[in-house]
């Protein structure tokens, strides 16, 4: 697998670490145990296109949101996490 890092360009799989489903949002502080349980334990496990968090730890250390098909491993989109490249926020 090769992932096109939005900052570094195309890189080989070995430079990246996988975290998983990127859909769940961390619940607010007052959300309660059920919401946090959902967030921590119930993730998309789609046979098809998933949105996933990957870390370019062997490169620029950016967290990425990767759209990938779990049946074919084909990657259709990569975007940086909200806080990667945040120096340009508001610019």
């Amino acid at each position, binding site marked *: 697998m090769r992932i096109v890092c939005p*900052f*570094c*360009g195309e*890189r*080989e799989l*070995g*430079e990246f670490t996988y975290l998983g489903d990127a859909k769940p949002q961390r619940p607010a502080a007052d959300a309660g145990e059920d919401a946090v349980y959902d967030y921590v334990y119930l993730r998309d496990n789609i046979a098809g296109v998933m949105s996933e968090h990957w870390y370019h*730890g*062997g*490169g*620029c*250390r*950016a967290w990425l949101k990767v759209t990938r098909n779990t049946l074919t491993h084909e990657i259709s989109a990569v975007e*940086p996490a909200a806080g*990667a*490249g*945040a*120096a*340009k*926020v*508001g*610019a």
Partner: protein
Amino acid sequence: MADFSWDIRGPLDRALVAGAYGAQGDAGVSLTEIRNFDLVQVMARRGKAGETAKAAKARFGIAAPETPRAVAAADATLIWSGPDQFLVLSKDGRHSIESLAIVFAGSASLSDQSHARALISVSGDKARAMLAKLSSIDLHPDVFGVGAAAATSMDHTSVTLWRGNDRSGQAVFNLLVFATFAESLWHTILDSAAEYGVTIGHSEEL
């Protein structure tokens, strides 16, 4: 009062043995460790990319790289190291962290990396062939030209790699590697280069 001194010991001081190594004949790979440099990581703060860029331009006379490139200023090299960040490589305290702290106050966070890395310069006919054993980056001259840089990994270890100006018609690849990994990676580099014949040296010049 005790009688002691603050001798510097670089991470390759013992592993590096100047001279020839590996296959005999014309050396295909030349390895030079560059010693005693200043290296400062500059990370723009949230929303402060513009201010950081302006401060860098004012200080170095050139724009800091916003993409994976290394640019040479009069007395420093600025090397992209990730989104919103770059490394300032210089000598003799001209751009020490103390002096840069004033320049980037309020716009960027600085971290001294002068002792955190070893710098190895690789050249020679077989430099690309040797580096292909360590790096997954495409170093073809059309793809990785002079000034190209990459934050990448070698031997599962993070490195910063960039191509400097050619020297006597040959490409020069510079490698910043983590100091505590340096000796181990050095041996791996030697093993990879041995079949081509190696010339080993060190220098104080960037």
